């Protein structure tokens, strides 16, 4: 699939924004400025970008505890996200959700999720809405390799198949669930599981934006055409710990440096578009600079922004009670 210049720029911007965002959050967490459980997506950008580039607001996604990348790729406001992660009143969720619950339903982002396997059932529902209301939309559940063993995920495969829903399950296999290797925790294989539930399955190198984008296009087109669900097994890695604070003693010591050097999705993207003379280096550098300074700016703003107050504590529990 040949991407237009605009699309290439959008893809790169998305991935760069995620990277810059995560690197900055990492810094701020290390400095003790962000509390709680924070899970970073750095290294995995090509998956969120590769899928979401095909999507519109009518399409829904459900994310995981590692939700910043999906949120950014699906169009959530970066400023609102950073405010949220700092627990500020102007955060995307008014400071009530934090990193693990970033959501923007108007953008079709149905939420990061603190429950492993929480998203796939919801996505069956969003896909059902799309089908019933004939919006032409699709719905995508991103799940980790660890989440791929959760019953809620497996049930959802079957429901999506049986109901013939425009749903897609993206198993983002970054090699680990916390400190547990997916090579150990997943009996069988993701592709065989897809077959086991009667869905087409695809495997793709998640460091390669173009590969992801291509497969994503196929399964999304299939879903839009009413031909039902698919599963995509994306293989790649995460650069940071499971959550911020994880010392990652379970990983070989050279694993990350090697990956950053050889398999970084942003580097691979740059190389490819520069070699093919599709974009200019200066353009890419300009994007980097712009994004870095935007992220810096929203971070500074967030840190200075007001917290919610007692008046916010008990609002938003119900529409009406």
């Amino acid at each position, binding site marked *: 699939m040949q991407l237009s210049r605009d699309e290439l720029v959008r893809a790169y911007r998305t991935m760069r924004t995620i990277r810059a965002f995560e690197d900055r959050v990492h810094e701020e967490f290390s400095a003790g400025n962000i509390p709680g459980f924070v899970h970073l997506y750095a290294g995995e950008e090509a998956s969120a970008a590769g899928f979401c580039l095909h999507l519109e607001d009518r399409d*829904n996604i*459900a994310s995981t505890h590692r939700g910043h990348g999906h949120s950014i790729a699906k169009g959530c406001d970066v400023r609102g996200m950073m405010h949220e992660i700092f627990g500020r009143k102007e*955060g*995307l*969720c*008014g*400071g*009530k*959700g934090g990193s693990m*619950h970033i*959501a*923007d*339903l*108007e953008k079709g982002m*149905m*939420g990061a*999720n*603190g*429950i492993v396997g*929480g998203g*796939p*059932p*919801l*996505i*069956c*529902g*969003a896909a*059902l*809405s*799309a089908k*019933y*209301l004939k919006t032409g939309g699709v*719905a995508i559940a991103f799940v980790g390799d660890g989440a791929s063993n959760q*019953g*809620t995920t497996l*049930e*959802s495969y*079957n*429901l999506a198949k*049986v*109901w013939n829903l425009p749903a897609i399950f993206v198993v983002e296999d970054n090699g680990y669930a916390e400190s547990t290797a997916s090579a150990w925790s997943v009996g069988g294989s993701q592709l065989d599981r897809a077959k086991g539930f009667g869905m087409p399955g695809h495997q793709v190198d998640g460091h390669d934006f173009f590969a992801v984008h291509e497969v994503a296009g196929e399964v999304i087109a299939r879903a839009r055409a009413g031909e039902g669900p698919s599963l995509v097994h994306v293989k790649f890695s995460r650069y940071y710990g499971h959550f911020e604070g994880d010392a990652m003693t379970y990983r070989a010591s050279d694993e990350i440096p090697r990956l950053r050097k050889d398999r970084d999705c942003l580097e691979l993207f740059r190389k490819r578009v520069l070699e093919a003379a599709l974009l200019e280096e200066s353009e890419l550098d300009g994007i980097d600079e712009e994004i870095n300074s935007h992220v810096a700016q929203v971070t500074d703003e967030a840190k200075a922004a007001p917290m919610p107050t007692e008046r916010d504590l008990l*609002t*938003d*529990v*119900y*529409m*009406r*009670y």
Partner: protein
Amino acid sequence: MARKSYRQAINEALRQEMERDSRVILMGEDVAGGMGAEGEDDAWGGPLGVTKGLMPIFGRERVLDTPITESAFIGAAAGAAATGLRPVAELMFVDFMGVCFDQIFNQAAKFRYMFGGKAVTPLVIRTMYGAGFRAASQHSQCLYPLFTHIPGLKVALPSNAYEAKGLLIQAIRDDDPVIFFEHKAMYDEEAEVPDEAYAIPFGEANVTREGEDVTIIAFGRMVNLANEAADRLAKDKISCTVVDPRTTSPLDTETILETAAETGRVVVVDEAHPRCNMATDVAALLVQEAFGDLKAPVRMVTGPHAPVPFSPALEDLYIPSAARIEAAVRELVAGS
């Protein structure tokens, strides 16, 4: 106005709301039935026939049978509710909550708060509860106290056919997730039920009778036992107020406090296990907010701290009875 059964009332509420609003859909195991089979369509209408007849009217697009996969389809109902539909999902027995509670209490219930007020989740979960059916430990529980504990959920417990229709219509029109509890031993009980659609607001208790001596606050099917007890007591000139709170969340604390103050003596009747249940909830409310009005201990009549037994001989002893309610009232009256 015609006499209709609890089952019919619920069926009628579903039908009328589906007619009114095309975004209302049903889903659950065998809510129509016969999927993929060679015999009749609409073969079941739920295990006790409550949804029977709806699929032929609204089609399989709106009455969706599901595989046995409660997490996936209850979660799907939540996800559909958050994206424009108004699903009514059937969790066949509330006892099955253990395989899908996450989608209810961590997802549907919390969307709105976690997302800073930006989600609207008009989800209804209809579910069967209660003992008396010889259905044993895993098909006879009440469990509404667990749902009542969870912020973000509303919980309705209709005590008769009239209440069932009105409360279910309200549940479907409500913009928050509602867990709608149907007592399986009541489906054949009849009451006067208007043909037209009507909604009974949540959080407004129904005072089924007013008396002077004792206030009985009872939930769900227990309301009927409370009224029965009150009838018998009336013969001995003991007059009772009976309150049916209708919903445990929101709870009409005002009516409870008022009617408690009027008599000063309260019996709370809850079919659920005794620990952290609605009886404790109401008794605690009273001792915190109406202490000065109480003339006597609050008496709680509940199921025991034991699973529900199968044997009819044991189950009959297990369930709170009109006789036990009566005894509790007499004890209060005698004690003062």
